């Protein structure tokens, strides 16, 4: 170890610091303006946003940031907002949320499931600040939760898929076997089999939200095994690109991915957070904010379908648009009985529908999904 001198150690530290500093400057789209204490103006409501990814990820975080901009536009000069992007879940999140709360923000939106406990922890220390946590299930006096019923979009996708598939096999790429993803798979297959009872879904778990090459591999494998429609519940447009390359169909996720797959994308399920953010920030202004849980779908405008592919025959387009209208009006429910699980057991009878409690903890497949759900 005689070679390690103080000089080398110092140089190493300087090197690391310089590189990290340069990296921070370059990545630093961080809007620190709002974090400077004293910059707060009493008359404006200050809203803070914590993002798990970069605002230009073309998916989840991008849609949340669009929501923030919509609210800013709607509320004009009455609000100002701050966002911090690419905040990893866990201890780092707690620090960022704490900082936002301590710097005069009136309402803070934490937009990833993994921010649940940090949000609750910080909320306890700042009883006068309102917190909103996306996709979580733990609430408090000053912590509300919100989520979108993405699965309603899957019902529409399932209807289109059932009409468009020739192979009767839907290839489904999931990130992780959590209720959020399982609901989407089940909603797709329930809708598809009402139209064509021979449709099945093959599921592959990528075990990541973000690895374009692996998502592409999964899509290739599913197409090689006979699927002709790819659906994914991961973050990138890679599966749609593979579908385009192989002349198959796909359904986009979180944002419209037609730029990557103009021929292949049948439609996409698009998240819309703007109206919700506007309402909640307005409620803080008016002093009417209360904690609660919001779980809105197509009717609430929290989920939208991207324009349907022109290659879809007009009667199928009409059927899909009808389903959208019925889901909005409530005459159609994604989990309307009769629903049987994989073992053939009737889970819910004709005329009834699964309640939100069952949906929130969904950990079983409906009939028509291949393989067993990992527990």
């Amino acid at each position: 170890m005689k070679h390690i001198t103080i000089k080398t150690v110092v140089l190493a530290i300087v090197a690391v610091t310089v590189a990290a500093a340069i990296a921070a400057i370059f990545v630093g789209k961080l809007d620190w303006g709002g974090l400077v204490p004293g910059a707060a103006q009493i008359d404006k409501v200050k809203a803070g946003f914590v993002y798990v990814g970069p605002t230009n990820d073309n998916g989840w975080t991008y849609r949340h940031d669009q929501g923030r901009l919509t609210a800013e536009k709607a509320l004009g000069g009455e609000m100002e907002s701050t966002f911090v992007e690419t905040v990893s879940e866990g201890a780092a999140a707690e620090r960022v949320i704490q900082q936002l709360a301590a710097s005069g923000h009136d309402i803070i939106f934490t937009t990833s499931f993994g921010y649940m406990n940090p949000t609750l922890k910080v909320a306890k220390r700042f009883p006068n600040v309102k917190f909103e946590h996306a996709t979580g299930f733990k609430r408090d006096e000053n912590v509300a939760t919100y989520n979108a019923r993405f699965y309603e979009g899957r019902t529409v996708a399932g209807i289109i898929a059932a009409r468009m598939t020739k192979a009767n096999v839907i290839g489904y790429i999931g990130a992780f076997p959590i209720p959020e993803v399982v609901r989407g798979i089940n909603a797709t297959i329930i809708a598809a089999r009402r139209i064509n009872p021979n449709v099945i879904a093959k599921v592959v778990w990528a075990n990541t939200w973000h690895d374009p090459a692996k998502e592409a591999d999964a899509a290739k494998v599913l197409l090689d095994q006979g699927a002709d429609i790819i659906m994914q519940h991961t973050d990138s447009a890679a599966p749609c690109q593979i579908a385009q390359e192989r002349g198959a169909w796909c359904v986009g996720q979180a944002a419209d991915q037609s730029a990557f797959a103009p021929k292949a994308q049948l439609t996409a399920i698009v998240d819309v957070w703007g109206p919700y953010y506007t309402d909640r920030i307005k409620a803080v202004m008016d002093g009417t904010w209360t904690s609660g849980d919001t779980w809105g779908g197509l009717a609430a405008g929290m989920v939208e379908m991207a324009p349907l592919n022109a290659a879809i025959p007009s009667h199928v387009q009409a059927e899909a648009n009808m389903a959208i209208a019925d889901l909005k009006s409530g005459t159609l429910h994604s989990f309307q009985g009769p629903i049987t699980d994989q073992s053939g057991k009737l889970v819910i009878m004709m005329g009834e529908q699964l309640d939100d409690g069952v949906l929130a903890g969904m950990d079983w497949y409906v009939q028509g999904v291949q393989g067993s759900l990992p527990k």
Partner: protein
Amino acid sequence: MSGLTAFLVSMIAAATPLLFAATGELVTEKSGVLNLGVEGMMLIGAVTAFSVGVVTGNTWLAALMGAFAGAAMSLIFAFLTLSLRASQVATGLALTLFGVGLSASIGQGYVGIPIETMTKLHISWLSDLPFIGPILFSQDPLVYLSVILVAAVWWFINCTRSGLVVRAVGESHEAAHAIGYNVVGIRYLAVAFGGAMAGLGGAYLPLAYTPMWIENMTAGRGWIALALVVFATWRPGRVLLGAYLFGGVTILQLHAQALGFDMPPQFMSMLPYLATIVVLVLISRDATRIRLNAPADIGKVFHPQA
């Protein structure tokens, strides 16, 4: 395409970025330098290649610029560790952090833009042959380049005088210095070659694999490449075997899932790592030969004695 053909075609594509990066790192390490910045260099290579591809529409130029960008990144590392004698481990880690951030920043304007993939080889009747056609004669050009480069590196390391000099520098920089070799200069070249290869490996992703740019799109492949070099006991042939094995098991576990095998996906995702480690450990059980093959002076800072 039959199932096996499809599997092998996907396997080769999945292995290629790893193969580029690991082969480059092997040369760097043979010269006695440990550069942990592979992930960062791959990302810079990927974003550079993608942006050049978007602007010029020329995928060959894009790949070349990706390699150059990787080499440029590695020269930052070389300057800090070889000229200023900073710790290689710390500097390599910093290089990865820097690469992740810098590539994200360069790539900001390129998210959401698709590009054309690299044209695949097509030789009139050879590519149409059953089985071997799709596997051997219908890949994209970078796949062939990766295999050629592995062979070239093997030949260089084992059969040339210059390769011997690189190894000598990696085994004992003091001795190499004493007999008059320019240790620092040789290491600069080896590091730059490693950087260029990492850049090419990164460039493969947006040019031939998933034709788009997304932040952090290498998703840890740089670290896998680093591990491959060690498990392959610094032999180019085994790097090839390891990369293909890793790619193969990656695709295989996805097939198993789609067929409905009853196994947790977490375990399935672990399989490629496990299989590669087990096989490479098994074929290199001979501890003495590993010790002989590992560069003795790897990671050590070189202070020339007058």
